[in-house]
């Protein structure tokens, strides 16, 4: 008989994103968790890279914010969820912002589109003046 498992959060932590050094801490902390939870090296590298991109966006475009990381469990399956929030100017055209190469700040324009590809789930909530929240999840 099939049982439907509930998604539970087994671990959670909030990190500030206010300076360049915070970006380094975000990368290190995500890496530590992933290695403790035995994600594969390739998964670790993809997730830390996505975290670096999204944390930099919160800092550079959003004027700073925070990352909440949570370890998820659904039955025996584990995942990591990273939620980046800022109270910056927000994004008027999300479809445009997700396009590879689109940047309003002289960047590479790969942070949003790239993180979406690197993670299993990607959600963005943003509107002008209301800040931005990007939530990404990757399952083991």
């Amino acid at each position, binding site marked *: 008989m099939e049982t439907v498992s509930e998604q539970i959060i087994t671990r959670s932590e909030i990190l500030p994103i206010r300076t*360049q050094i915070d970006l380094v801490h975000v990368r290190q902390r995500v890496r530590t968790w992933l290695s403790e939870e035995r994600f594969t*090296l390739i998964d670790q590298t993809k997730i*830390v*890279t996505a975290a670096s991109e999204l944390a930099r966006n919160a800092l550079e475009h959003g004027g700073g914010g925070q990352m909440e990381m949570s370890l998820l469990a659904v039955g025996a399956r584990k995942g990591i969820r990273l939620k980046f929030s800022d109270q910056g100017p927000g994004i008027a055209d999300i479809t445009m912002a997700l396009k590879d190469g689109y940047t309003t700040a002289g*960047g*590479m324009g*790969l942070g949003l589109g*790239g993180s979406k590809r690197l993670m299993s789930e990607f959600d963005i909530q943003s509107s002008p003046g209301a800040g931005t929240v990007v939530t990404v999840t990757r399952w083991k």
Partner: protein
Amino acid sequence: MERIPILRIGSLLLVTIQVDLYDDLALQLQDDLSTRIADLGATGVLIDISALEIVDSFIGRTLANIAAIARVLDAETVVVGMQPAVAITLVELGMSLPGIRTALNVDLGMEYLRQAATGGDGVGTDHYAE
């Protein structure tokens, strides 16, 4: 300010990135290398990134900028030791690093730079992306 050391071997410059590369440190390296290439008339730059656990779009762009500046100053750049997981991730991120010559390790990278300096063909190196 903290700086990444640049070693000189003959007409080549060698950099090993061993720290957590925060953005200003990467930009400082770009500036320092440009100055050293010009001052010494260096013919080649080798950047060992085997200790780098990730290359995101900012670091990728900095490496590409260094290679572009070096080329204008008549020097070749080779990036060596990229971890396979980093290479896979970079491609998925959408950065194929065109214009950056890569080699598997320091020896092959040095060999390429020496041959490039004498007008050779760079045997023994591989392109990460064309």
